[in-house]
């Protein structure tokens, strides 16, 4: 504990230089702008920023990326409130109450509430990040190949289930497609080259950054250009500074949403959008003003924003502790850490514990910057929303091309970016979520190496895969993810629930009837 606080102090001190603070301010502001603009998502912003920062020292580069991440997830609330279009998918729940507030002429109030909700959510996410990363990292030291194999399967399955709630099958297909894509290139045990069909450039495998720039950048450019222009609400922005009474009234909702957002964010490949929706749903169910939700509820707006920004902290926990991203932007962050020579994973608490606390310090600075910048320059920044997409998207695509190329100066990476852009667009049109595929690309190598290692350890015996305690828990979660939404399972759960709780209810009512 004391060691943790000391390392956090060192981490904060490390970034209290004029240069670093300037980086915090511009990167967070840029993140807010990227998040605000529909079509520029947090993932795209971080992927492009990775290509712009790969020459910087690791600490500065990761600091800029975290500022961009937190800024973008918050910034999306602006367009959700003013345009009814979430700037990033994470702000979809924000639009439900933020936009009605703007229509009622309370755009300034909505922006202030969203900013403070995001700030508080982010603080909760940061505290969870500081508390749980070492705990999970130390626990993961017990993991062997069996557990890592199941963890990889669990990652793609849960990500598929939660990112495609209407049709989990498509989410799972997307995840397994990602695992399959990771099989391309030289494998890690015998250096045998797989599925390259003679293309030498594929020998090193599919690089994550060009693939993500394509899937989240180029695909979004096509998506955005499909639609015609949208109008900004011409609501006069007056008071932005939020009132204390709103927070005193809804403090329970904010804390609950922050905790839920962090938990959901920490689930592999699930992300901030689901964090916001789950927080929003919980807030609606437990609210005394549930009828106001969707009509401009202050509580709903704060729950959604606290949820999505807390999920950022949650998503970074498995990045650091397990080298498994909690969301698509966190996947880029993980790739960026690899580029800069940082090796996250269970060993980080032994090899480089200071880095974990440095990330917490970066998070703290980014959160503070987001709060200050979010409450200032509101009227000026609204003008950004008026930039026509026909003028913005070609510039974005130019950055996608040069960004994909720049990291390794390979023309082939532009081809990868273009191919994944088209694939991402087709997947979106066919309602396949892209996030599980990205997670699959990252987890593919873990799955491949650990399955084969485990088989060597057991000499082909499959029993240890099913008998070790952690493996069993992971298998149980996988099965629950697979069958949890089937009608027969829900029916069986309802029957079981009625059998257990119904008996108590009946007993209680009988007691009540007895004089």
């Amino acid at each position, binding site marked *: 504990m004391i060691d943790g606080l000391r390392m956090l102090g060192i981490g904060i001190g490390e970034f209290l230089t004029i240069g670093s603070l300037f980086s915090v301010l511009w990167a967070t502001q840029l993140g807010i702008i990227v998040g605000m603009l529909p079509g520029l998502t947090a993932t795209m912003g971080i992927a492009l920023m990775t290509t*712009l920062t*790969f*020459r910087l020292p690791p600490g500065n580069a990761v600091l800029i990326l975290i500022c961009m991440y937190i800024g973008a997830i918050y910034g999306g609330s602006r367009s959700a409130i003013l345009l009814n279009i979430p700037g990033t998918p994470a702000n979809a729940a924000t639009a439900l109450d933020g936009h009605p507030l703007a229509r009622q002429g309370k755009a300034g109030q909505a922006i202030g509430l969203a900013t403070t909700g995001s700030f508080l959510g982010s603080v909760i996410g940061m505290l969870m990040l500081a508390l749980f990363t070492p705990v999970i990292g130390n626990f993961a030291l017990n993991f062997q190949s069996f557990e890592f194999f199941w963890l990889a399967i669990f990652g793609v399955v849960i990500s598929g289930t939660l990112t*495609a709630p*209407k*049709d989990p*099958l*498509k989410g*799972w*297909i997307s995840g*397994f*497609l990602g*695992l*399959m894509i990771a*099989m391309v290139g030289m494998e890690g*045990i*015998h250096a*045998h080259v*797989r*599925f390259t069909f003679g293309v030498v450039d594929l020998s090193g495998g599919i690089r994550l950054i060009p693939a993500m720039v394509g899937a989240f950048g180029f695909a979004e*450019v*096509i*998506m955005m*250009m*499909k*639609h*015609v222009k949208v109008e900004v609400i011409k609501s006069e922005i007056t008071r932005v500074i939020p009132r204390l009474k709103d927070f005193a009234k809804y403090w329970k909702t904010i804390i609950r949403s922050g905790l839920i957002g962090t938990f959901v964010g920490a689930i592999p490949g699930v992300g901030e959008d689901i964090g916001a929706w789950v927080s929003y749903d919980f807030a609606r169910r437990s609210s005394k003003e549930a009828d106001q939700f969707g009509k401009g509820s202050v509580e709903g707006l704060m729950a959604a924003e606290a949820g999505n920004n807390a999920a950022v902290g949650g998503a970074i926990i498995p990045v650091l502790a397990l080298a498994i991203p909690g969301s698509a932007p966190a996947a880029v962050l993980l790739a960026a850490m690899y580029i800069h020579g940082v090796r996250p994973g269970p060993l980080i608490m032994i090899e480089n514990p200071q880095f974990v606390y440095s990330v917490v310090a970066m998070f703290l600075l980014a959160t503070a910057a987001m709060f200050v910048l979010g409450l200032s320059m509101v009227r000026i920044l609204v003008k950004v929303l008026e930039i*026509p997409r*026909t*003028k913005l*998207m*070609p*510039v974005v*695509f*130019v*950055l996608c*091309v*040069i960004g994909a*190329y*720049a990291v390794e*100066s390979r*023309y082939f990476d*532009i*081809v990868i*970016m*273009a191919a994944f*852009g*088209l694939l991402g*667009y087709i997947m979106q049109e*066919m*309602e396949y979520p892209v996030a599980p595929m990205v997670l699959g690309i990252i987890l593919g190598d873990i*799955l*491949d190496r650990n*399955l*084969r*290692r485990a*088989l*060597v350890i057991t*000499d*082909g015996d499959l029993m240890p895969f099913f008998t070790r305690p952690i493996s069993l828990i992971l298998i149980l979660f996988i099965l629950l993810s697979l069958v949890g939404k089937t009608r027969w399972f829900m029916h069986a759960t309802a029957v079981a629930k009625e059998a257990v709780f119904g008996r108590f209810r009946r007993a209680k009512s009988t007691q009540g009837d007895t004089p």
Partner: protein
Amino acid sequence: MSDAQPRQTPRPGLAMPKADFVTGVFLLAFSITIVVLSVQMPRLEHRGINPYTVPGIVPGLLGVALTIMSVSLVLRSVRHGGYRVAFSVDQAAGIARKPVVWRALVTAVFCLFYALALVGRIWYPAATFLFVLGFIVLFEYRFDRPFRTQWGTVLFATVEALLTAAVVSAVFRYLFLVRLP
């Protein structure tokens, strides 16, 4: 079942059974190919490796998993009438005439032209200038109106294209020391 009875509404997620059928068949062919290629992959016996570490084992298992999921997708779409896929030139022309489709198609083709045909073949700043200028003009210029009413659009596009080409090239070339494509 009488005609008056309301038709069963499709379950959520099955809004596009025909598209699911087509993608399911494609995925099935893809996953079977993966399984076949994995089985055919060298076992590296001459290197005396452990048979449980052969390179094709994991892709093969993933191929099997994808095959099962693809079959589920196909069967589910068949149950919802997805197999009644019909193609006609008129239908394709009708789809292509939709502004949404047209805009997406033009964007994709023009972006691919820049990324795959211009970049790397002509001087990078020139390629970028042409792309940005062309993109804005393509989507903003109304060819049914006289030029004199739209010269501002072309001027703005030219300035934006010049600035983008110059700034992006300079930043990557001189700040990040990247040899431009």
